[in-house]
């Protein structure tokens, strides 16, 4: 949202003179002294937010790289054009937008140029368009900040539907390295409650560096020491590596982090290739280390392109561990034990547990610092299948038919968050509680949880539907394997 390339026709025209049609589409100034309170984001490569343009003989404003000039949203033509662009893509069928660098749309004297009221007003304008003409489409804010600041981008439910939760991500990595839950629970405790129509977007990795902007200096040093042992892995204020190499290609640790991603409150966002445990190439410049071609198959260029290898913008990975001949979609689809299959199954299970998406979350006390346990709970609706339609067997099925309309009461076509059922659906509403227990340590760990509140429920392990011992008022003991996790669907006695 904030900038274009300096090769974009708009910028080429804008820089060509001071009186062309797009002269004011970017932010120009005769000197480089304006807005001194606006910080330089990439301090390692840019010394100023202003860069001199020899053609126009003026400075132009850019909050990121000098080859990414900022658009001038104070020009109504620009703002209108951006709205038109949004409509263009939505008309093509796009489901939504990630609003890149959204805090930086406007500049004002005496401010840092971030999170300005004008920016929020513009987002509300886009949202209004979506609500009116494209219901169901979403806006996702990319605003790297503290949750209490970023929550402003939800507005009163009239700005973005989703906001990335940046500070959580490095803390997930910190927690598994430190083998203690506090980096995660601390940030969750500082995450504000948001409107029901809004949600955090949570992620493990993305197309940028693993940003360490939102951690303390000490924690940044720690993360660099642990996850960027080679200085070439550092990028700006973060680490330019993909998920699998960050975790030493450790399948158990990767599964654990995904288990957290899929069960913590928020909508999980998965970066392409991470579903395969793809690697990176730290010798490529800047963020390109994590932007190598998707590895579809063992064919030429990993199935990404039929072009000559030399013509590719970035080379595909070819090393023996992460290269496309070893790690690719085609091979993983054939192998039932592959990470891709494991992740698909996890996503299926998550979909069947609506409280993972919209339920409340309560961190459960556990004396063992390496164990992170929480309860996701809320009201859900079982949408009943019409008689004769094959459906997913439900936990509520009675052991034997007792004269009731067995098929109608025992078959659940799908379970959705309460309120999300269709007008004509026949539903049974119920309370769903899912207990999630994670071991952040490389060693097996015991967990003793106080679950008296759920006494009388039987925990069914979600992946295997294996019943565990009944919960009583006494502390509930669970043993977790190294980096292990267990999700339990708590089924009350009256449904068992």
């Amino acid at each position, binding site marked *: 949202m904030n900038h274009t390339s300096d090769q974009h026709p708009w910028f080429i025209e804008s820089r060509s003179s001071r009186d062309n049609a797009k002269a004011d589409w970017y932010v120009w100034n005769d000197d480089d002294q304006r807005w001194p309170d606006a910080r330089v984001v990439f301090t390692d490569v840019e010394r100023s937010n202003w860069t001199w343009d020899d053609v126009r003989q003026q400075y132009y404003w850019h909050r990121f790289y000098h080859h990414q000039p900022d658009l001038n949203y104070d020009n109504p033509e620009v703002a209108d054009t951006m709205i038109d662009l949004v409509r263009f893509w939505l008309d093509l069928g796009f489901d939504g937008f990630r609003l890149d660098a959204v805090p930086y749309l406007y500049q004002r004297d005496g401010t840092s140029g971030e999170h300005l009221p004008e920016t929020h007003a513009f987002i509300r304008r886009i949202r209004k368009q979506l609500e009116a003409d494209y219901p169901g489409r979403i806006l996702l804010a990319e605003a790297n900040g503290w949750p209490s600041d970023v929550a402003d981008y939800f507005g009163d439910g009239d700005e973005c539907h989703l906001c990335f939760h940046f500070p959580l991500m490095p803390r997930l990595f910190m927690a598994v390295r*430190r083998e203690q839950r506090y980096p995660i629970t601390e940030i969750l*405790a500082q995450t504000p409650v948001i409107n029901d129509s809004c949600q955090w977007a949570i992620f493990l990795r993305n197309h940028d560096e693993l940003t360490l902007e939102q951690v303390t200096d000490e924690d940044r040093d720690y993360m660099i020491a*642990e996850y960027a042992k080679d200085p070439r892995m550092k990028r700006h204020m973060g680490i330019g590596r993909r998920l699998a190499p960050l975790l030493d290609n450790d399948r158990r640790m990767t599964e654990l982090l995904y288990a957290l991603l899929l069960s913590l409150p928020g909508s999980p966002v998965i970066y392409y290739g991470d579903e395969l445990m793809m690697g990176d190439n730290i010798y490529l410049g800047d963020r390109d280390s994590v932007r190598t071609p998707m590895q579809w198959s063992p064919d030429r260029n990993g199935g990404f392109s039929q072009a000559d290898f030399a013509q590719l913008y970035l080379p595909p990975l070819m090393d023996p561990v992460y290269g496309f001949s070893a790690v690719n979609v085609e091979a993983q689809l054939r192998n039932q034990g592959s990470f891709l299959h494991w992740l698909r199954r996890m996503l299926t299970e998550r979909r069947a547990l609506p409280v993972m998406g919209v339920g409340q979350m309560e961190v459960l*006390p556990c004396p063992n610092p390496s164990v992170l346990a929480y309860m996701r709970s809320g009201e859900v609706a079982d949408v009943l299948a019409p008689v004769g339609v094959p459906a997913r067997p439900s936990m509520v099925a009675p052991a034997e038919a007792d004269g009731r309309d067995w098929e109608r009461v025992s078959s659940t076509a799908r379970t959705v968050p309460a309120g999300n059922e269709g007008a004509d659906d026949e539903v049974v509403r119920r309370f769903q509680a899912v207990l999630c227990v994670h071991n952040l340590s490389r060693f097996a760990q015991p967990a003793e949880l106080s679950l008296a509140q759920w006494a009388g429920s039987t925990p069914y392990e979600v992946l295997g539907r294996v019943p565990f011992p009944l919960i009583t008022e*006494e502390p509930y003991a669970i043993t977790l394997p190294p980096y292990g996790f267990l999700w339990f669907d708590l089924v009350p006695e009256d449904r068992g």
Partner: protein
Amino acid sequence: MTLEQDAALRTLVLAWYSHRSGADLAAEAVTIRRTEVLRPGRPGLLDLVAEIDGRLAHLVVGLRSVGDEPHFLRSGDELALGLLEDDDGLAFCTDALHDAYLAPLLLATLRGVEPRPGRISIVRDDEDGMVLDCGDRGDLTVFPWLADRTDPAVDLMVALERVGFNHVAAPLMRWQWDQHDLGLVQEPIAGRSSGWAVALTSLRDLYASGGSPEAAGGDFGSEAQALGTMLARMHLAIDRAFGRHPEPVAEWVEMAEAELRESEPSLLAAPDVTELLAQLRVADTKLPAIRTHGDFQLERTSRTDQGWVVSDFRPGGVLPSMFEPVPRSPLADVADLLWSLHQASTAAAAERDPSGRLGLAKLGQAWESRNRRAMLSGYLGTPGIAGLTGPHRDLVGHLVGLFELARSVRPA
């Protein structure tokens, strides 16, 4: 109280005592000193104080209808005490603190709020007190044995909270009878783990991976630094609450020397110790003495989602073989914590390598060394603390060494 009632109450006390100590007493050894109905009816709560062999025992009796099924917090802990007849008829009596329903009822009764169902778990259960974590309703502490005065640990906690020390679960209700502390309700502490458990997590990681403690994933450095900062803030708060007075360093040296002479005289002949004492004896200066924690070790602290807290104020500044808090250098608490780091590294090494064949001692020393530095950096870097420790870093170092030496000869 009728003779029958007195006899029945003494029977309950005897059953309680027998459960706790495993020993039986004669009924005549028990004198009921106080009875208070905390909550009438069924289920009801009755508070009892009884004198047993000159000590004051304190128990909260849960009164259930005969036929009610009690739920105890731990199997094997089924503290049924007996039967009691009162105005509401015959009651089946339990130790209310071990009863999953009656313990939160006690907490609600003490606070004067409506009881709410919810989680409950035992944090600590020993002769000094029983602490129950009642989730978001708070922590309930009840003292099974009463001293002849207020509890120094509670005094310390309450005083610190009043002067704004916020690394503590604030007391919500102090339960007293005459000059005795019967119990306490504190605000809830979310997601706590004991400092000892967090340190062991770090050590287990280091012992498994080897290398330097800084490079180990489970590095404890930042936690040790935060602990040091918290300790310094506690000392500054103690100073605000109780004040200070100057004492000659020479006196501290003499006391420590006497302690060593009594417990481990051979240490005094060790060259390092001789040199340390010689250096301290020439320190002709006075430094502030304050009331201290008295036994500040990792187990007295908890890591929470909000950072570190002091979760246990025992002994409240009262040193072994003393009856009142004795002012001393705040660095003595620092030494206690450093000593505790050593205890942790030793305990984790013994866990992993009982035979000592793996040679984990070097790793343990490196871990201690790193975390000592971090902890001291947190402590000495806290604004204002130099006013209590004195400005001379060498002297501070020597004093910490001296106090740690003295701590090492005391029982763990």
